[in-house]
């Protein structure tokens, strides 16, 4: 790793330890400053890698972008959140310190995943994210939080167990070409991909897709996701949805790249079609019947993972680029939506959609930004997700898979109906009596505005370094780095 990579890892790790020993007020400010610094360092690193410098490849670099967006804004958001939501069974101060420490540690683990090139170490890093995320979900101490944490740990750990079988099978298949003792680096497998056994590669990819797909929230392995997102603290939900899902996708893409290089893209595309359409179906139809604002956003995550999987399945370079861009767009839009949901839930003292009305009047800035985020997630122009979804669909219609693209359009319309229906209900209309009006929390608003800027800018114009990274990452996924 380069010196800058070490700095990027050291900041959240140092913060995770430091916030345990300083008062939570100081910890909040340290987290905000540290996370913004970390995000800025990641930005510098991405520009360098796009310019051909640095040791990381484009795929690793691209998957650092969601961390920069979400972690950078979470630190700012926590300035408000930790003060406003002192919920916890262990006392406020202890709860706040634990929350900040776990949040920084969680961010550190999420950053480490794309930086690792050794797939066994990468598996360990993903397992660490599971433990930290479960502890964060459990932190609020309610029965629902305990249940969600329990479910998440069991389902995600079992999923990762299957993922590890994929790693082991791949390692065993590589012993013929690489010897009995070797470091399982992605680059090593790519170099000898033509010598790997095709059946073993297929099995390894399927195990990786099911195993890491569980962590990514792909249907039918998604059952932990709505519960964990619903029960966890709002910043945790943003980090789970915006970053952790993409970290799991990153690992799947590494397996896909090896399989594509050795076997061609047919097998991986068929597999992505199955899980993609299923996830899109589950996400879209469950969106229609949600009653809880955070669970609604969780199902939206499942839907968006389905869109990304379909983009990978279409195979056309434009669709693949759209899928990779959608990873970044989804992280930004979903973080914004969760931040808004957290603000609404705190002000209305409920997460029930039925009881949230007139949000644009009660919280003029946060409510409006939440509505923008929801519309962006629904695929409305001029936001980033619209651009990437359009790229995916254009790629789909340009190839032989156009009948599938028609099905995808249909499911996207269902999801659009679900999200806009609830969003209009929450933001428009008359506000209930007794709910205080006013939006005077500058830190939370600053976090939301920062992320909204990303959502809007990518919708209007893809910055050149990001476009370069996407093009190079797409070549890696196709198996032609």
């Amino acid at each position, binding site marked *: 790793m380069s010196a800058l990579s070490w700095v990027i890892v050291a900041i959240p790790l140092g913060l995770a330890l430091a916030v345990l020993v300083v008062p939570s007020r100081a910890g909040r400010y340290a987290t905000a400053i540290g996370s913004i610094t970390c995000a800025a360092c990641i930005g510098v690193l991405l520009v360098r890698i796009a310019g051909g410098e640095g040791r990381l490849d484009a795929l690793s670099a691209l998957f650092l972008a969601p961390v920069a967006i979400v972690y950078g804004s979470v630190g700012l958001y926590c300035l408000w959140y930790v003060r406003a939501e002192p919920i916890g069974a262990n006392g406020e101060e202890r709860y706040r310190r634990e929350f900040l420490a776990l949040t920084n540690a969680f961010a550190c683990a999420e950053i480490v995943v794309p930086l690792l090139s*050794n797939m*066994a*170490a990468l*598996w*360990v890093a993903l*397992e*660490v994210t*599971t*433990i930290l995320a*479960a*502890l964060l979900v*459990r932190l609020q101490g309610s*029965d*629902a939080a*305990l*249940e*969600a*944490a*329990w*479910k998440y*740990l*069991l389902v995600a*750990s*079992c999923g990762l*167990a*299957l993922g*590890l*079988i994929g790693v*082991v*099978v791949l*390692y*065993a*298949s590589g*012993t*013929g070409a690489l*010897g*009995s*003792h*070797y470091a*399982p680096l992605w680059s090593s497998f790519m170099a000898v991909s033509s010598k790997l*056994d095709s*059946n*073993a590669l297929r*099995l390894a990819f399927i195990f990786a897709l099911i195993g890491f797909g569980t962590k990514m929230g792909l249907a039918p392995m*998604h*059952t*932990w*996701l*709505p*519960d964990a997102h*619903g*029960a966890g603290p709002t910043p945790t939900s943003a980090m789970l949805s915006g970053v952790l899902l993409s970290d799991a996708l990153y690992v799947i893409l590494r397996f896909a790249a090896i399989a594509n290089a050795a076997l061609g893209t047919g097998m991986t595309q068929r597999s992505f079609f199955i899980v993609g359409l299923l996830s899109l179906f589950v996400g879209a139809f469950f969106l229609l019947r949600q009653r809880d604002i955070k669970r609604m956003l969780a199902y939206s995550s499942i839907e968006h993972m389905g869109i990304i999987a379909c983009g990978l399945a279409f195979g056309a370079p434009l669709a693949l680029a759209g899928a990779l861009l959608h990873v970044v767009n989804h992280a930004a839009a979903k973080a914004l939506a969760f931040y808004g949901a957290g603000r609404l839930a705190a002000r209305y003292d409920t997460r029930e959609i039925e009881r949230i009305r007139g949000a644009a009047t009660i919280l003029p800035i946060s409510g409006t930004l939440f509505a923008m985020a929801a519309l962006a997630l629904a695929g409305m122009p001029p936001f980033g997700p619209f651009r990437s979804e359009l790229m995916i669909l254009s790629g789909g219609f340009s190839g032989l898979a156009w009948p599938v693209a028609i099905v995808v359009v249909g499911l996207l319309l269902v999801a659009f109906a679900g999200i806009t229906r609830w969003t209009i209900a929450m933001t428009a209309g008359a506000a209930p009596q007794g709910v205080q009006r006013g939006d005077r929390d500058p830190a939370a608003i600053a976090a939301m505005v920062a992320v909204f800027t990303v959502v809007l800018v990518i919708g209007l114009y893809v910055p050149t370094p990001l476009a370069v990274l996407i093009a190079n990452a797409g070549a890696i996924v196709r198996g032609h780095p």
Partner: protein
Amino acid sequence: MSLHELTVPQAMAGTIAMLLLLVQLALFRSVVIPEFIRLYAVQSWLVAAICLGAGITEHAWDLIVLAILTALFKGLLLPGYMRALVRGISMRIELPARVNVLLSLIIAGALIGVSILTAVQLPLLGGIFLANADLATTLSIVFTGFLLAILRPNAVAQVIAFLTLENGLFFGTITLAPGLPFIIGVLLLIDVLAAVVVFAILVRALVGSQAAASVSLFERLRG
């Protein structure tokens, strides 16, 4: 390869693999928590034995150290800790099961059949016993571990099912990828640590609710 062509270490590894599977099947007919914990301890000793065997035949000191750590941590300390934790929650209460023992054994047998059929398709290299048999054993333990977790709606039983599944993974990693000793060590610690954390949090919470660790309490959230 016919039976008479097996070397002594290969035959011993095969025997231990068979014993691992038998212990896994014994869990399906087990009805009380202490027996569950005891069977898990036996299984952990068996994977420690296979790790030790791999270490000796491969002359790998890290695998030998790992075997000793496995025996101590997973064979002794963890079962002891689990016994202490569950002592307060009706040790003799019969564990619930979603289907009867015979049917659960038939399903487990079918999963083992699927595992064998899957494994024989692959011309893998590098197994310390026979690569296909190693993979078949790994898949069998992992799949039946899933089944056990599904069929026993009890928190303690589900944690032990997860730990047996992890034993299967450990077996697979040692036998199919012996070149990964350091990572395996990290993996071992983190995986078991995760299970211990869950176990402690959960059992304490459920003891508080006097529910004998039944996961029937956990049915509000539906995914």
